[in-house]
């Protein structure tokens, strides 16, 4: 900010020496930088080291270099597959539910826009654990499952402890993260494009497919990333609504770390999760850059 100070005649410029300015910048950024290095970079490096190491008899870490933990993790890929399938379907469902909602808020709710967004943020930022727990009451045999048992005449019908229950929890928990970016892109959309398309005789569906959807695409991709990554690493929802029987990466990790105390094996799973995240983000950056390029061309 100091660099913006205009030089006023007859008075020393408010800008202090360059060194002082640099010191100030450093002092401002240092605490956050320390946090990033000590509590993000170093822990992840240590996890990486652990994942190549062995396990001592007491459960501790033994330095070494072997791929045994990775081989073991790959030999039992079930948790990875379960998580990938659940997160993919969950992301798709969030999109299916979130797009019409974001579209409605952005284009139809004129005065109530801000209010509707607040209504979306409030549950999202309110105790995740409690809201997940609530579904335990709703979906149990005294709730929806019981209702369906009577309806189907099938006493064994249940929702809790199944993939469906977990999926419902995932969509419930992360839907707002899909809606926010979609809303922002649709809100900025130039409505005259839609009008023009209609004036030119395009049908609703064609207008939606050719105008609205391409405009919403960046928000759609951002939303999918924001939803997919935490769904992959989710632990609380499969544990509560899946009774831990829907075995995800989250469950596998938790088990290795806090129960089996096999940290090197857990670390390998953790590195796997990080890799999936990195691949997703790389794909995202690749897609958005490509998208940007093609849009620029089409505008010209």
């Amino acid at each position, binding site marked *: 900010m100091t660099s913006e*100070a205009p030089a*006023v005649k007859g008075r020393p410029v*408010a800008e202090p020496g360059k060194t002082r300015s640099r010191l*100030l*910048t450093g*002092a*401002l*950024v240092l*605490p*956050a*930088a320390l*946090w*990033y290095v000590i*509590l*993000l*970079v*170093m*822990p*992840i490096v240590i*996890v990486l080291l652990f994942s190549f190491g062995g396990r001592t008899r007491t459960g*501790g*870490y033994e330095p070494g270099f072997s791929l045994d933990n990775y081989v073991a993790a790959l030999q039992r890929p079930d948790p990875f597959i379960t998580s990938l399938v659940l997160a993919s379907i969950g992301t798709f469902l969030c999109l299916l539910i979130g797009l*019409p909602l974001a*579209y409605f808020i952005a284009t*139809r709710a004129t005065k109530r826009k801000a209010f509707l*967004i*607040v209504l*979306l*943020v*409030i*549950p999202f*930022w*309110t*105790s*995740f654990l*409690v809201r997940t*727990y609530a*579904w335990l*009451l*709703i979906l*149990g045999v*005294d709730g929806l499952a019981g209702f369906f048992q009577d309806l189907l005449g099938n006493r064994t019908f249940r929702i809790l402890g199944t993939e469906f229950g977990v999926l419902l929890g995932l969509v*419930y928990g992360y*839907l707002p993260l899909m809606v*926010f*970016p979609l809303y*922002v892109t649709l809100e900025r959309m130039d409505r005259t494009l839609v009008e023009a398309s209609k004036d030119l005789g395009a049908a*609703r569906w064609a207008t939606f497919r050719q105008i609205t959807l391409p405009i919403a695409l960046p928000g759609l991709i951002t939303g999918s*990333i924001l939803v997919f*990554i*935490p769904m992959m*690493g989710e632990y*609380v929802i499969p544990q509560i609504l899946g009774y831990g029987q829907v075995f995800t990466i989250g469950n596998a990790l938790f088990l290795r*770390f*806090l129960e089996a105390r096999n940290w090197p094996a857990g*670390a390998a799973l*953790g590195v796997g*999760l*990080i890799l999936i*995240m990195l691949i997703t983000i790389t794909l995202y950056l690749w897609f958005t850059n490509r998208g940007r390029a093609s849009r620029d061309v089409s505008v010209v």
Partner: protein
Amino acid sequence: MRVDRVGTVVEAWLRGHTFLVYLFLYLPIIVVVVFSFNGTERRVTNWDGFSLRWYESVLGSKEIQRYLTNSFIVGISTACIATIVGTMAALGSQRLPKWLRLPFDALTYVSVIVPELVIALATLVFFASTIGRDGVITNATGVEIGFGFHTIVSALSLFNISLVLLLVRARLSGMDRTHVEASYDLYGTPWRTFWQITFPQLLPAIVAGFLLSFTFAFDDYLITTFVNGQGTSTIPLFVFGQIKRGVTPATNAVAALMLLITLSVLLAGQLLTRRRGGGQTDTSVAGMIAEQSN
């Protein structure tokens, strides 16, 4: 004419869809609150008349009071650290030279997007191998620092520092610079200009950051369960334990209390930031989150 009819159907469907989604979002909250007033002594879902007995028993329980106090300690400390460090970083990171700003920004985004479970296990491994039993620092100094509030708060601060940073920086970049320039024209020192012009304009974002960090830390289960120490269990850990062991009507009362605390903090923040903001841009907590997630 036919097109119009399709139009009406589409409009009605959009409306209905929106309504159902909001119902879906709020139904669980309503269910927990309603059942927390259940007078039953048996199953949680057996409605047996309105009663406040479970609130009485919960609020009277020394155990639960301790968990609640721990949650407040964790929530407030995390929020203070995240707000101060995050705001400083937002002000400083703009002034960084490019070669430093790129990695700094990258780390900020990584800390926001990385799954919580990864942070939880990585910090556990880190703390255990440095300040835990047999840790590097423990062996070197002979003093075992161990796990406790400090490990929980520092681990939770990571995400929240970045959250505050992003909120404040967004506000900073949307700020009206003419006042700052006017202040310099009127011979204001950088220090006074900051406190009298910049800071008041950033305040809504700083307040929002503080309140969001508080609720995040107050409600956190995953990181806390990995890095907590003796006697530092928080209320989410208690609720999760109850869920695993079998819920009682008291669980509902505790859950409803947690909702009440976080909801009132969020609503207070919403009202506070709304009033102070003014202007056309949405300065409320909700507006900032929606904007930020893009």
